[in-house]
């Protein structure tokens, strides 16, 4: 009974850094700038086609990046989970090490790598291939997302695969299932909670990022994160920025519900399709 106070720090933390900021966002979103007058004008403004277009583009890019992360990350997680103990720890460290470096630095590094006279084009030219302009395109932004967020896909899948009861796979094999069948019918369905966690952990930061799109997408390139950042920092219209945030949260929430419905049905093949 006397231990109840142990939860107070948690409650205080949640209140200060989650509930109050969220409350403020909603407050600004539904009031006129510099007054407490209730209005739906900000939301209506945010729902204009130009902003919905940006929002859709952000969700689309983040979704594609999440799918790519899944396609690359799942086999990597399997390789990790199947490798021998000492080898495995080394591989996990290799995956985690880039995360020790600053996110901005890593993204700047890609700018250098991809630029017109950078190493990528130097290599292409060396082999007699035409130079390509990747920087400041969708591809560069997706590359940045996949590169930065891939560990968040690998680690949850890896941890689910590691915990999987090996006797289930033996049972499947014993009952006549070959390698592919037992993967399709046992391993994959049972790893879906990890896939779902990984998708959320990649999709969330990817859909809201403004740094990756700013640096690798160039100045002209707008994702919803950039629009919101601009409203708050450059233009100073907190009400409109908040309205855009609320709209984005609503859309993320809907897509997550969609995803969780899929994962519960157990046919996790499709993500958004």
């Amino acid at each position, binding site marked *: 009974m006397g231990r109840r106070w142990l939860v107070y720090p948690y409650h205080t933390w949640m209140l200060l850094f989650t509930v109050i900021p969220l409350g403020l966002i909603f407050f600004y979103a539904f009031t006129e700038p510099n007054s407490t007058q209730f209005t739906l004008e900000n939301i209506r403004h945010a729902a204009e086609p130009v902003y919905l277009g940006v929002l859709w583009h952000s969700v689309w890019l983040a979704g594609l990046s999440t799918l790519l992360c899944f396609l690359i990350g799942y086999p990597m997680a399997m390789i990790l989970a199947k490798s021998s103990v000492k080898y495995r720890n080394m591989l996990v460290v290799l995956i985690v090490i880039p995360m020790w470096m600053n996110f901005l630095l890593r993204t700047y590094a890609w700018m250098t790598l991809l630029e017109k006279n950078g190493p990528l084009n130097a290599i292409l030219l060396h082999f007699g291939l035409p130079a390509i302009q990747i920087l400041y395109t969708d591809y560069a932004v997706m590359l940045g997302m996949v590169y930065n967020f891939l560990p968040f896909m690998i680690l949850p899948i890896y941890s689910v695969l590691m915990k999987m009861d090996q*006797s*289930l796979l*033996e*049972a*499947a*094999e014993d*009952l006549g299932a070959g390698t592919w069948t037992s993967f399709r019918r046992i391993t994959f369905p049972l790893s879906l909670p990890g896939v779902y966690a990984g998708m959320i952990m990649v999709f969330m930061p990817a859909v809201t990022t403004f740094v990756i799109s700013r640096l690798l997408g160039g100045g002209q390139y707008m994702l919803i994160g950039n629009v919101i950042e601009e409203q708050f920092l450059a233009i100073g219209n907190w009400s409109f920025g908040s309205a855009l945030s609320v709209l984005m949260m609503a859309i993320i929430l809907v897509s997550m519900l969609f995803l969780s419905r899929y994962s519960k049905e157990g046919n996790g093949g499709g993500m958004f399709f």
Partner: protein
Amino acid sequence: MQEQNIINLVNLTKQFDDHIVLDNINLFVRKNEFLTLLGPSGCGKTTTLRILAGFEQPTSGKILFDGQDIAQVPPHRRRINTVFQKHALFPHMNVFENVAFGLAVKKVSKAEIKIRVEKMLDLVNLQGFETRAVDSLSGGQQQRVAIVRALINEPEVLLLDEPLSALDLKLRKDMQVELKRIQKRVGSTFIYVTHDQEEALTMSDTVVVMHGGRIQQVGRPEDVYNEPKNPFVADFIGESNILPGRMLQDERVYFAGREFVCVDRGLGEDVPADIVVRPEDIRIVAPADGMLQGTVGSVTFKGVHYEMTVMTPDGYEWLVQSTTMTPSGTLVGMNIGPDEIHVMKRVAG
């Protein structure tokens, strides 16, 4: 007789790094028998089973299945199925899907799967459980699902790896009877692994006692119990008094400071031997009437009988079971009939 043996293990050896788990195992399994591999943990019984299932490769030796060496055949191609120790039911499938798994993998038609699953659930009295989630079942029900999930594939040999160890005593007894009934009904060969000697004696046609990666004795349960081949078997199967002694000549044995009449013959003259006397075979009599005299030490009530220790002058502490209570400290006599003395030739080392 050769064609009657469904499995022949020939010089089977398994080594993990420097550790020898199976040391030159030779064993045959007859068609349709209930054979039990019995031994303490680490004796190699589970490894033997896993080699039969195909999850482990023997270091050397042959596994003949119907006369063919199957050492290189992967598990999913063997006509052998396994019931795992912790059931290993697929948690994301219901009872029906679990039982149907083997058939579904083999692309059996949906209609036939349905008929055969129903028949299997019938066999273990689980009608109506088709759509239940496996984690909503009791331990005994899960066990039965695991058994029919393996049996539905109509394996020639069913391997059972301590399947009852997770169940409580009462349920375990019921399942022992049930397993035996299922085995009679489907008529497959069952190879059962356990460390529980009572389980082994109750269910088996043949008991294989293993210890330290070797087979200690193979025989019918009665033979293994009554005529243990060595002190390990005597000690592991039931409780025993094992005393050092000498075989003087046929039907004459010396131990505990005197000569006894026994029924063993042909062990040689004046050779060292180990003598086994079961605690239930010793009769407590008045001190003057006894072949041996001793003082009662501890007395424990065990339900059907009292179990006591009796210290004889030669310093051996006997374990004796008796239906009458004798207080601690009493001087008693003990009689042992010729039939109840089991003489085992001492093995070198």
